[in-house]
């Protein structure tokens, strides 16, 4: 006589899943970021009965509006030409995940969505690294408006440097951005070195940990425990977001790292973010079903020790001694820079009460080269007005003006003046006033 009844595992916490695989949208059939990408993850989640576990629920994403995109990005070619419905759905999935946590419906939320977004910068002239809209940033900026959260930390564990998110919050001392990734000398986008510490008024709010190729579970966990956690403990965010790229997996076809599904889960458990948003991950059969499952279980505070991918072998996920030594000394360097960011030189020049800097950005999806000229007012009352002039191979100079959160009246009127002047010159110009939740363009 079977007397056993299904166990009702008491979850220590609740997890909301927002799953949006966009099965009817892709760039082309053999692109790494293709329709099929989350198919096996969904099969695995369904077959595991993940949603039958008490405490784990699935939520339908809302569709983000253009006002959500223009709260984060500037787009000289016009949002209509760059932002498609899938981007709105993907950003909407992230926003839904964020709301689940902040309105108290769930302790944790995980948005498994595509397309990803962490290479999309503040200015969008085209597509970069499969991204057009930075879904985490759009989520964070919306949550700031809706829930009044201020100090937000983003830890980007995608194998590629999260250059888009870094760029968006470069001048924002209220957003701590930490990226752990494969060293930029060996992988796209080629940035993310320890010396990149944030703009002149937000030094130390950007942290980069470039790990050597072939780093495995031990190396990642070391960086998480020795660098990321102490920094977070000191910085004390109100909200912790994980940009969860699953492409550090040992089977990923376009990267060179050696992380396992359980390694990912241990890393997430150590980080303990409130919100995770899926970014990259292109081993869609060998890694994603297992990594996403392990990460979901780790977020829910459940046992993930049985999630062993079929191709897993201990030696495939090992970090060699040489790499471990390198990671240890890298960790010290990064911690030292976080402690004294002013000791590291930055590439802004100071003149006439403002900081200026030149940058070149390449949009690999569209093959566009962009030149930027950034100007930040050195204001003693606020973060300072940000003005970015941008031109590409295809478009003439346009101006993007950002009146930052907590702007002083002088910077605000300076911003509106800049907008008016540019418009009179017939230049394309966009203006955002963060506190007023205002976006306008001409």
């Amino acid at each position, binding site marked *: *006589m*079977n*007397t*056993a*009844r*299904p*166990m009702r*595992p008491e979850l220590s916490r609740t997890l909301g899943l927002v*799953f*949006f*695989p*966009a*099965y*009817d*949208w892709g760039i082309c*059939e*053999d692109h790494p970021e*293709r*329709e*099929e990408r989350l*198919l*096996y993850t*969904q*099969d*695995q989640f*369904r*077959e*595991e*009965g*993940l*949603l*039958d*576990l008490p405490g784990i629920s*699935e*939520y*339908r*994403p809302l*569709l983000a509006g253009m006002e959500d995109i223009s709260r984060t990005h500037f787009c000289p070619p016009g949002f209509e030409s760059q932002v498609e*419905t*899938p981007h709105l*759905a993907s950003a909407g999935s992230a926003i839904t995940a964020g709301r689940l946590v902040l309105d108290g419906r769930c302790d944790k939320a995980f948005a498994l969505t595509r397309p990803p977004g962490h290479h999309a910068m503040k200015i969008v002239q085209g597509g970069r690294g499969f991204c057009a809209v930075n879904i985490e940033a759009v989520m964070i900026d919306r949550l700031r408006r809706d829930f009044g959260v201020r100090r937000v930390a983003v830890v980007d564990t995608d194998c590629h440097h999260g250059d888009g998110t870094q760029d968006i919050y470069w001048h924002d001392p209220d957003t701590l951005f930490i990226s752990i990734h494969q060293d930029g000398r060996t992988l796209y986008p080629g940035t993310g070195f320890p010396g990149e510490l944030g703009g002149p008024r937000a030094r130390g709010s950007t942290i980069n940990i470039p790990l050597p190729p072939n780093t495995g579970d031990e190396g990642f966990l070391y960086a998480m425990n020795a660098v990321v956690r102490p920094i977070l403990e000191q910085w004390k965010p109100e909200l912790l977001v994980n940009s969860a790229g699953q492409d550090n997996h040992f*089977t990923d*076809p376009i990267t060179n790292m050696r992380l396992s599904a359980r390694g990912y889960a241990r890393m997430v458990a150590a980080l303990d973010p409130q919100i995770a948003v899926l970014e990259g991950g292109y*081993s869609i*059969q*060998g890694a994603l*079903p*297992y990594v996403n*499952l392990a990460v979901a*279980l780790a977020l829910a505070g*459940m*046992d993930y020790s*049985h*999630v*062993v*991918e*079929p191709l897993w072998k201990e030696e495939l996920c090992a970090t060699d001694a040489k790499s471990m030594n390198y990671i240890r000394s890298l960790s010290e360097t990064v911690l030292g820079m976080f402690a004294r960011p002013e000791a590291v030189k930055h590439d802004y020049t100071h003149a006439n009460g403002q900081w200026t800097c030149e940058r070149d950005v390449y949009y690999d999806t569209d093959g566009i080269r962009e030149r930027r000229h950034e100007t930040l007012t050195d204001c003693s009352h606020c973060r300072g007005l940000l003005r970015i002039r941008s031109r590409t191979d295809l478009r003439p100079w346009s101006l993007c003006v950002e009146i930052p959160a907590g702007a002083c009246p002088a910077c605000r009127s300076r911003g509106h003046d800049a907008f008016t002047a540019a418009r009179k010159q017939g230049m394309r110009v966009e203006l955002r006033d963060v506190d007023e939740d205002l976006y306008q363009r001409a």
Partner: protein
Amino acid sequence: MLIGLDVGGTNTDAVLLRAKNASLVASFKAPTRPDSIVPGMIEALRAVVRGHDASKVRRVALSSTLGLNSLLSGNTLPVGMLVVAGPGIDPRLFWGEDPLFRVLSGAQDHRGRIVSPPDPNEIREALASFRELGVRALGIVCKFSPKNPELENSIAELAVKDFGPDMPVITGWRMGGTLNFPRRMHSVWCNAALAGVSRQCTAALRHCADELGLRCPLMVLKADAGVFSLEQAGLSPASSMGSGPAAGLLGIWAEDKAAEPAATPDALMIDIGGTSTDLSVLARGSPILVRRGLNVAGRPTLIRALWTRSLALGGDSSLRVGPQGPSIGPDRLGPALALAEAESEGQRGEPPATAPAAPGRQGGCAAALSGERRPPTLTDALNVLGLAVVGNAELSRKAMAELAGRPDSPEKDAAALSRLFVRHALERLRDEAAALLSEVNARPVYTIRELLLQDPIEPEQLFLIGGPAPALAREAEKAFGLPARVPRASAWANAIGVALARPTKTAELYADTLLGRMHIPDLDVEAAIDRSYGLDHAKKDLKDAFAAYEREKGTELAPLPADGACPAPGPDQQARADDDLQFPYAESFAMLDERNRRGRSIRVMAQRAPGLLFCWKDAVPEAGSHGKDKSERKGAHSGGGL
């Protein structure tokens, strides 16, 4: 002619219909015995066939509570479970401590590829221990078996060798193509555990049919509001569990033409019984099915069933006043006090049939015998307001007045208090309906198209069924702000609905052109495919497999032309008759495997949706207008089990 049988908690209703002019030829109510449903079914069946030519009966369809009752009462076989889980969540998390639950080594991946087979010695050892523990049925479930049944079949082969062919061995892939390993385990367990009782019941019904000269297909109602053959029901008894709301839906369809699929706007269906009320949603006349499957006796299963929310509130719910205010239910101590006379009559003669309530709730008899007054019921309140006419309304008035006289009562007048209770009951129904709708409308979608196009379901119509339905209709219209339709007489509606229920079936096809394999677990079809296999091939294969299956099982649509069934009018009905195989989804994904080979992963689902064989033109007669319903009891009208 068609026969429909509806087994309720109190009565077993049988109807004999003539298809030619869609008329009710005979009907009969037999009491349902609490210990076994079979005698009531046989009695009712005999009664409606008596005096008619049994050879003209083209089909017998029945709804049964057998599976659920057996499960709840523990009338099940001890089942040994062998599972292959591979990587993922530990399956014991979904099961708990059980010596009859064995997790084997081995694994199969999400494409159905066997990563490693289980160790045969491990299987033999488990089977030996099962034998010692007195196992009488076996369940075998592997993760991802809908994509490839090979592992399960090889284990089943070993088990049959070991235990012999008489041992029921249920494999997971036979539960269909839905991916959900824990639910597949529990569905397999339910089917294995019920194998014994379902074999007995099938044999008894078959025997009875033979004896009566009924040489037609015998069909059983499933929880998705469709029927399947008695033989299939014998193999998969779990599918008929939870078919109560389905019978209610068919009853509405049978009686109210306006409720037929595509004829209506979105609607709420409220089935008010004696102790509980079930709410479900109709999207343009079609029921919304519960996501993932029905939960039965604490077990999550894959059983397709109407998406229902139940609350413990019905016509017989006790009304009380207390320091926390007035309360309704959740208990039922007996029928309305207005029927108290009937109750005492019942005590003098044979005991009245009682719903198979939980032990210790032996209804009004106990309360009456102990001399203690039990509280009035919702039906008594409706009686006081003149909305219901049940039994002796004076008894209701007395009881409500007494309740109103209590110090805690917010109203001092029987009518005012009754009004308060009715409003309170409807508010609870309305809140429950709102919760159900927000659940249904929050169901996830996975494509941009659905995200943009899917309209939320917004009911514009109420369908009220069950005993107290007519009495509550007008008040419900006010509370919900929606027009309400109530079947004029619900006494035979469910049995007629069951008689007319169409066969339903769903099947999912998985094809993987890189593995060169196509599999339809629900229809037991497997084939090799080549690289050019596409969505059109898949749809055609699924359609052909469906046709072959229906021919073999005798569940083709429209099995009634010889009897001159009236084809239902309307373009929609016509289209359905032509070919109503629906494809809820048909997807083909470009695949690029680890070695950069291009292929396609194809998933197609096909279904025959529930509906009626033909429209029921005849007005459903009032109960009692036929000569055959001798056993009609006054008490049966108070709500429960109708």
